């Protein structure tokens, strides 16, 4: 069951511009990306929200070296380890992302938030 996050509206509006500029079908591959990573994500009980930042190669593979946690002190936690594992494992053969829009996805910031509750 999925829940979703909403970002505050003004921020979203500002950020929507470049996303909209990315062209048709943007949301498709974003959704696809999210789904791909989720498939490998198994957060342990009691996981906390953690943000993971990382860089991508042109072929859709992850630059393994570049994975970082925010906050950085969570780098050794199970929450981060699970997130990191998800990104790397499901990305072993590269994620399916449009090469012509590489500039848009060469740097990623993903928030992993284990929530419970019914689907929205």
């Amino acid at each position, binding site marked *: 069951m999925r829940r979703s*996050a909403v970002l505050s509206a003004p921020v979203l509006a500002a950020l929507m511009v470049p996303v909209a500029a990315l062209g048709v079908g943007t949301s498709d591959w974003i959704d696809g990306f999210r789904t791909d990573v989720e498939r490998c994500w198994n957060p342990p009980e009691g996981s906390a929200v953690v943000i993971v930042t990382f860089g991508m190669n042109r072929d859709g593979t992850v630059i393994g070296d570049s994975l970082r946690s925010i906050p950085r002190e969570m780098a050794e936690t199970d929450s981060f380890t699970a997130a990191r594992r998800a990104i790397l494992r499901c990305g072993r053969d590269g994620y399916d992302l449009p090469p012509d829009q590489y500039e848009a996805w060469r740097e990623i910031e993903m928030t992993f938030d284990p*929530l*419970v509750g019914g689907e929205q």
Partner: protein
Amino acid sequence: MRLDTGQIISGVAHTGLIIFAIFGGAFKSEPLPFEITEVTAISEEEYAAMIAEPSPDAVANVDTPEPPEEGQAPELSSEADAAPEQDQPEVTETAEPDPVPEAVEPEPIPVPEAEIADAPQEPTPPQEDTAVLAPETSERPQPRPAPRVAPEAVEQPEPDVEIADVDQQAPEPAEQAEEPVPEQEETARQEATTEIVTEAEEVASAAPTRSVRPRTRPEQVTPAAQPDPDPEPRDEPAQQAEPEPAAEPETQEATSPDSSAVNDALAEALGSDPEPQGTPQGPPLTAGEKDGLRVAVQECWNVGSLSSDALATTVTVAVSMSEDGRPITNSIRMIGSEGGSNASAQQAFEAARRAIIRCGASGFNLPVEKYATWREIEMTFNPENMRIR
């Protein structure tokens, strides 16, 4: 247990990042099923107990190394310092601090070529948000970091050339002057650039991340380009007790702003007057001459080691000059300061004083027949343009 591990992945993008803009319910608005442990306020007793006895677990694991050595705190005692005996200040006509260049036309200083930073050039995304400052145009030559920052850029000398304060070509026998000149190694001024370049700027060549200090006027009037070049080295006072009577005033005349017939006559008449105490007067210093003095002092005004306080302090320094163009060291005094504290004014003054003494050691290039006009000089040292932060 209905532990529905919903998951949310969202990403945030700037240019070059992506947002996963997925709308849904409120962000974590529903209560969580598992126990929320609140932040426990530790009671005083508990805490005292904690402090008093470290938990055995903690102690067991810690391999208590030797406590770090705490050297005995050095005591400070200032003795009433009897000034060490000093030889009476002697006239420094002996060894020159800086070797004097030969009397040949100094070569123009080469300007560094436009540098491209060696960072891999990545294709910049279409919307370049240089949030902080506007990017510079690419035509502007990129300054590289160098050990020395000076108004004029100096190219990196050959590696085997010694670094000295003055450019100096290895003398070629053919161009020797009449007097035999001691063998001097070829020296070159230390590589210098016109502004400070941080690593971050070096890398991000396209879009510098901070505003560059206003560049000094590249067409700085240098002593080499003086409108009235004085080929005779002036720092040989022994040979030039009095200025050449006829030659000098006429040379000065050429650039004097107000050359009237009367002044011509006056100058000529006075020039031929050998009286030493009749202080020769003439027209005031030309802009070129003033510039020459200013540039000469600037060359020695080193603000690199000054604190930001001192860099915010403007000091005015008075100095009396002797006729040979040298500052009288004991006469150098601070007569005013602006901005900063007393302490920072002191620092700024000391740097200014050093500048005057060092670059005046062999005499400034000032026309002796106008001595009256430059016998007393007040220099204001304003580091506004030199501030980095």
